[in-house]
């Protein structure tokens, strides 16, 4: 076998490190959302200063999560980046279009409940995941 000059053999390790970092930031963000949503009921009552500090903490951790996601994307190769960016485009489009439709269903009282942001977030998550699977299969 002819020798091949490897540019870097630790590509998988680099991606794994970035993915672990993203998982940690995401976990912290989810925990901070839970703290901001339920903390005032369970721990500190109606203390607005604590509420503001916890929401600021949640926002800061959210920025960290976004940066970790960007770093994770940059570590991927060009084809995998393309697959993810296409999936993001589809989920962003669906979030805008679906979110507005969902909101109008609520505004016109077609649905008997309030349109919650959680519905849109679920739509984003599901559409991103399905688009990713379809795109990955397309390039196989």
């Amino acid at each position, binding site marked *: *076998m*002819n020798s*091949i*000059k*490897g*540019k*870097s*053999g630790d*590509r998988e390790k680099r991606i794994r490190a970035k993915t672990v970092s993203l998982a940690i930031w995401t976990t912290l963000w989810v925990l901070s959302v839970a703290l901001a949503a339920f903390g005032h009921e369970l721990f500190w009552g109606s203390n607005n200063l604590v509420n503001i500090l916890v929401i600021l903490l949640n926002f800061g951790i959210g920025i960290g999560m976004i940066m970790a996601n960007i770093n994770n994307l940059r570590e*991927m*190769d*060009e*084809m*995998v980046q*393309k697959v993810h960016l296409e999936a993001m485009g589809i989920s962003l489009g669906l979030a805008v279009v679906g979110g507005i439709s969902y909101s109008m269903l609520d505004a016109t009282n077609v649905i008997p409940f309030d349109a919650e942001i959680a519905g849109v977030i679920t739509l984003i998550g599901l559409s991103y995941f399905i688009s990713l699977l379809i795109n*990955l299969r*397309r*390039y*196989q």
Partner: protein
Amino acid sequence: MKNRLKVLRAERDWTQADLATALDVSRQTVNAIENGKYDPSLPLAFSIARLFEMQIEEIFDDEE
């Protein structure tokens, strides 16, 4: 876009994983390029050409 990547790789007895490591891309990307499912960017095409010590047009053919 057609290419001779699979043949060139086989001539050198390299696996897709070997080539992926040398190009710093995933094995899936090498597979997609070989199968004509993905056209590489110009920098990646130049990296491929440098690795095989050939001209880009000797590896890639832009005729459908």
